[in-house]
């Protein structure tokens, strides 16, 4: 059984196979993202009780926290894909890394904006230069740098490799964002959801948060698959399988 998985992955990394695979999966992922997102929003904004300390204002965590997780998660995916792209020169990995960057940048931006909206009433400031906030901002700039570098090259595959290298250098920032609240005494509170030990959140608030986390993951995959499909068509425009699609005959 374990022999089949690498074989399957190898087959999947061929552009036409992935194109069909992603195309088949994408509507389902999008539907799942919408469904879980709606449930999570309803659970978070209506069903979950108000916080003992922050009242209703805490409800922004249902957007802020999943976005923040995604900003790091996507960077992790991008870093991994970048590594694969640089070492094994797999075209699909290059495309996945480069198409993850704009989605990650968007989530990082949402994190910063919602955090700022939350910080004003709670802390008393829109922005403070503490370690968590600053490192998250640096994360946004790293995403933008990767996107910018990718588009600066005329040869897209070369651009992808250069940007992948930058993404790998920047990966050092990910643990800094994650652990900054533990390493430095920051204004930003510590982590609520812990893998080890009990989480410090009531169950009625936890489940919408986790559902939203699922929703953002589904959305990311759906969005990524869509972007990768478009990119593959563009990159492989000279190949037969793309011609077959372009001329209207189905490739099934």
């Amino acid at each position, binding site marked *: 059984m374990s022999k089949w998985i690498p074989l399957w992955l190898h087959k999947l990394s061929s552009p036409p196979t992935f194109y069909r695979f992603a195309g088949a999966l994408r509507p389902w992922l999008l539907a799942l993202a919408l469904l879980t997102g709606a449930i999570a929003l309803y659970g978070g904004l209506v069903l979950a*009780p*108000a*916080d*003992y*300390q*922050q*009242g209703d*204002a*805490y409800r922004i*965590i249902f957007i802020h926290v999943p976005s923040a997780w995604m900003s790091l998660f996507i960077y992790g995916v991008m870093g991994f894909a970048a590594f694969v792209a640089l070492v094994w020169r797999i075209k699909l990995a290059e495309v996945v890394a480069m198409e993850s960057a704009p989605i990650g940048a968007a989530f990082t931006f949402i994190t910063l904006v919602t955090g700022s909206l939350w910080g004003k*009433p*709670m*802390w*008393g*400031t829109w922005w*403070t230069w503490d370690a968590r906030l600053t490192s998250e901002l640096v994360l946004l700039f790293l995403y933008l740098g990767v996107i910018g570098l990718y588009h600066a090259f005329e040869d897209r595959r070369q651009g992808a490799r250069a940007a992948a290298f930058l993404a790998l250098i920047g990966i050092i920032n990910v643990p800094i964002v994650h652990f900054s609240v533990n*390493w*430095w*005494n920051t*204004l930003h*509170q*510590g*982590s*609520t959801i812990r893998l080890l030990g009990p989480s*410090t*959140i*009531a169950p*009625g*608030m936890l489940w919408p948060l986790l559902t939203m986390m699922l929703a953002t993951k589904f959305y990311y995959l759906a969005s990524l698959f869509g972007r990768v499909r478009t990119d593959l068509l563009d990159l492989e425009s000279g190949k037969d399988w793309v011609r077959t699609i372009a001329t209207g005959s189905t490739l099934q």
Partner: protein
Amino acid sequence: MNPTRKRRLIVVLLVVAAATVAVGLGVFALQQNMNYLFTPSQVQSGAASSHKTFRLGGMVKAGSIQRSKTSLLATFTVVDADGAMPVEYTGILPDLFRDNQSVIATGHMDNAHFVATEVLAKHDETYMPKELKDAMAKAHKDKPMPEGSDAGGSP
């Protein structure tokens, strides 16, 4: 040894040596207090006396908040385990500002009290409904806050 391996070995050795030096310097740096954040007791013992401006961290003493009726002036006392410091602030206080809340105030000393130019409230990482909180508070009456009271702690 073939030259490729030799070169790799040299690179690895260099990286290890650099990492060792860096860790040593890091440990040295950690021993120095880089935080300009002081607790009331530290301030009273004179630790902050060399600073013109510094940050004061601690908990708002229950019942100490007094707001002026005519202006935005508010006075309150920030406490830690064994110190207390009266604080003056003119401006809009954050929503979370209340009794027993961890706060970080930036400002300077004026005689025996602290004049703040900015007051930030640090909320903790605990989220729970009010009813549950009340029930828990009843159960542990002598512990007013679960966490977040470490605003003056070391990094």
